[in-house]
């Protein structure tokens, strides 16, 4: 038996210019490359599901579905959910959840409307007030989550009820009519302005949604703030220990989410023409659905906002496709349920095959 005293460490004492260790690179080929791409780009999977569903309905419905008009209609129909889902993505990336998104959006639109009509504030200023309102509610959410350490689910559930009830009380349940807005405060409808490109009809709101997604995707990937959002969602304690200002990151995320929801409220006026305090009640569940179909983990820290965008579009494609195919409402509802599960199952399967 060699003695305990064998000075084995000398073997590694001098630093040798060692060849970088390399394992035999497993031959990849075409499928291998596909798998690798899927692995490093999480939003590719919902994109594939989206394209598949477009093809499916294209085959089923032909040119009724594959027209510029129909395809851009989908964009218009998902714009509000798309915008709100972008906000929801940010919050969910931090391992939170925001149940107040719908209420913030609606109340912001009511603020824009009532400030213009009830108090006669210049509409452009009223819009800014609406945006500020959304940001403030979001910041309050963030403050409660970050500083008071309350669970996001509870904070935003409570805030949802508070803002929604306040919305009904403040607006006295009155709808401001489209015609009046068009006459007196057209800027409120600015997000609804349409323009045509080769038969395809776009609205400012749709363009806004697309730009928003791109800007957020950039910010999440290429700025320090974005990396911190992921780190906070991944493991807040580790993030704190490694030097992230967790509290400020959280507050900024919730405040930004509030601001984006207020933009959604503005877009809502553009879409329906009027200011209606009863809008947006499904935005919570729809935005969360888009986020999760898009592959962002509800446990935070994983996924991409592009995925959310595709997730919203997938639901939009199925909804319009099924309606055009003549499914009645309950069957549409049922089939969308099946498809939500199926979309995620396909997602899991692709990930597994490409693991």
């Amino acid at each position, binding site marked *: 038996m*060699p003695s305990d005293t064998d000075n084995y460490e000398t073997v590694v004492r001098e630093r040798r210019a060692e060849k970088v260790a390399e394992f035999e690179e497993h031959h990849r080929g075409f499928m291998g490359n596909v798998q690798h791409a899927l692995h490093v780009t999480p939003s590719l999977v919902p994109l594939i599901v989206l394209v598949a569903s477009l093809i499916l309905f294209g085959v089923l419905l032909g040119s009724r579905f594959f027209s510029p008009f129909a395809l851009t209609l989908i964009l218009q129909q998902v714009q509000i959910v798309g915008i709100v889902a972008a906000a929801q993505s940010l919050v969910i990336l931090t391992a939170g959840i925001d149940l107040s998104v719908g209420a913030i959006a609606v109340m912001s639109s009511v603020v824009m409307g009532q400030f213009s009509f009830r108090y006669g504030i210049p509409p452009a200023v009223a819009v800014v007030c609406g945006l500020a309102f959304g940001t403030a509610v979001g910041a309050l959410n963030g403050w409660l989550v970050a500083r008071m350490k309350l669970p996001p689910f509870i904070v935003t559930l409570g805030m949802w009820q508070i803002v929604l009830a306040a919305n009904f009380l403040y607006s006295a349940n009155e709808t401001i009519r489209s015609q009046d807005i068009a006459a007196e405060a057209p800027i409120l409808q600015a997000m609804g302005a349409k323009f045509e490109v080769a038969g395809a009809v776009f609205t400012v709101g749709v363009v806004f949604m697309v730009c928003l997604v791109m800007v957020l995707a950039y910010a999440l990937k290429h700025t320090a703030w974005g990396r911190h959002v992921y780190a906070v969602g991944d493991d807040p304690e580790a993030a704190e220990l490694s030097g992230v200002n967790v509290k400020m990151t959280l507050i900024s995320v919730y405040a930004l989410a509030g601001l984006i929801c207020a933009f959604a409220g503005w877009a809502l006026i553009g879409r329906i023409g009027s200011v209606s305090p009863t809008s947006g009640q499904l935005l919570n569940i729809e935005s969360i659905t888009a986020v999760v179909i898009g592959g962002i983990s509800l446990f935070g820290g994983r996924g991409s906002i592009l995925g959310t965008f595709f997730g919203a579009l997938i639901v939009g494609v199925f909804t319009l496709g099924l309606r055009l195919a003549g499914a009645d409402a309950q069957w549409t509802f049922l089939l969308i349920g099946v498809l939500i599960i199926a979309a995620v199952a396909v997602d899991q399967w692709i990930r597994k095959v490409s693991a």
Partner: protein
Amino acid sequence: MTQETQRKPLLTGRNLVKRYGRVTALDHCDFELYPGEILAVIGDNGAGKSTLIKALSGAVIPDEGEVTLDGKTVHFQSPNDAREAGIETVYQTLAMSPALSITDNMFMGRELRKPGFRGKWLRQLDRPAMEKFARDKLNDLGLMTIQNINQAVETLSGGQRQGVAVARAAAFGSKVIILDEPTAALGVKESRRVLELILDVRSRGIPIILISHNMPHVFELADRIHVHRLGQRLCVIDPKNHSMSDAVAYMTGAKVPETELEPA
């Protein structure tokens, strides 16, 4: 060790391959464990040691290759399958439920029930018995600085956690015990207790696989040393015929072993 060449290995791996995306963690790796021995596995960080023992204990399903136990090919689908076959493992990540107590963690998956009606029909756990057992096992390891056996594992210090994991494996392993760096976070005294425990276990006739970066410990305990490098078994050496320097030189690539494989 010539007497051992006659004996049939208890647990083997042949040609094991495991890839993670671009990384090949196991690259056609072989492995043998003989009855009653302490086999040490050494190698650089990232060499694939943990992956190897995960493949043997059902925690990872290898892409290629086969594992045999007692001469029969086995296909463990989960660590539970391996445990049922008598293979008990302390993973490097420890595998504990942070919010549960030390006792709960020690008995996870093989809880004791109260005798009689309460156990049989109400399926009630026998907490006092479980607590006593847990306390005794930790005492053996000199881990009595743990003040409360019902403390949540997340409130333990790093070393205390490792102690709990080792105590669990030693208490329940019946055929093979695998320890992935069991003393990494342990103090001098606690490490010593674990080494004693390993010898205790071997004296009960149960073979042990020990992964460790601590050469003096490896050379003190091991009957044979499996040197792992770049996802493969580079060689198996007899600690009586090699120095620690040799071992380190092999595993770091500073020296190439003379014969590919020493007679196992």
